[in-house]
């Protein structure tokens, strides 16, 4: 191949790759953009005082006289955990991870504890829990 042809081919390839990259970034950024969403779950005054309450993806757990809000999303791969009244544990129906009452991991493939969610006490005694996802 002559030097001139080689240079021409080389430049053309570089131009092609760089324009492809230049175009693929906006496409990538557009496709992968997502707004962070928030939603509130409200527990009425007195709920959670007797035992564990579940509402809309949130467990309200009384621990040592205080209320703890735990996300019901398993930290392994995002299934919703169930509360086992007898064993007093959270269990994931998908891959069998188990967590204790305060969300600490006991067994199974999950590595992290259940996510604790911020609680806000309202003036009328209701408890508002915020989930970000």
């Amino acid at each position, binding site marked *: 191949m002559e030097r001139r042809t080689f240079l021409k081919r080389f430049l053309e390839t570089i131009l092609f790759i760089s324009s492809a990259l230049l175009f693929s970034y906006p496409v*990538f950024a557009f*496709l*992968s*953009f*997502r707004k962070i*969403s928030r939603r509130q779950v409200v527990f009425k005054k007195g709920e959670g005082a007797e035992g564990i309450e579940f509402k809309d993806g949130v467990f309200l757990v009384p621990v040592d006289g205080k209320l703890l809000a735990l996300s019901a999303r398993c930290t*392994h*791969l*995002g*299934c*919703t955990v*169930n509360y086992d009244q007898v064993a007093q544990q959270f*269990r994931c*129906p*998908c*891959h*069998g991870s188990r967590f204790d009452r305060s969300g600490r991991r006991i067994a*199974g*493939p999950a590595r992290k504890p259940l996510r604790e969610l911020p609680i806000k006490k309202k003036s009328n005694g209701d408890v508002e829990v915020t989930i970000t*996802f």
Partner: protein
Amino acid sequence: MSPEMHINRFSRYLPRLGLASLLLCIGSGIILSFQYRPLGNVFRNVEEITTLVPFGRFFRQLHYGSGQLFVLLMLLHTLEHFLKRRYRSFSGLQWTWLILSLGLCFFALFTGYVLKGDKEGLFAGNIFMNIIKTIPFVGDPVSRFFIVPGKDLLFLPYLYHILFLPVLIVFFLKDHIREWFPDRRFLFAATAGLFLFALFIPPRLDIPPNAPVPLVEGPWFFLGIQTLLKLIPPLWAGVGVPGLFAAGLLLLPFAGERLGRWIHLLLVTCFCFYALLTIRAFLFGP
């Protein structure tokens, strides 16, 4: 009849019956799309299609049965060519398109499973999303190409299921299929068989999304992966192992005689192991 003839007949029947199932699947899918809505209370919508809409149960089962049959026949068809080492006669690129389209067929089955909108479907969607997220650096943004959490969870799988995947599958297969309309005998056989299936076999009970059930099972072809997910990190069980298997399969026509034989043997071993995992999960739960 000599055994050779039997094998030839088997080779001929599989893809032709598969094509007939694909046509029935597309037809019933088009019909279902007039009543199915991927947003809002999808579970309720699917239950209404099954119980309230006239012939809804029939079309749902026809779509389910034809889709499953099509992909199962494609898997057997590929397996047969693989075992007879027919990939040697394909150009590397042809083989790549075909394997890719088989992968897309399974993805179409999977998105269909998610679109049921019941507990199993929603969990499967979430698991799929979280597995992609475990890919280092690009996992999180790439997962949003396929599925996003929140109330629109089923929208992208829906788009893939009814638009991207059928178009891509047909595009990849177009040079591979000589005649797009299968022989009338095959079309008749598939129609008769699948109509009987849709008429007499009720759909599996869908689990309401809020029902607490002790065990949730994935679709049959992911039961092995569901078992693996209990044992090894999700990046390996969900991406690494299937990815290596696919890479081996794609490399076959490019590998030389000796290396090719090794890869072939390795793939057969992996396939048998996966089949055993699946059977075990069927019998004793994943």
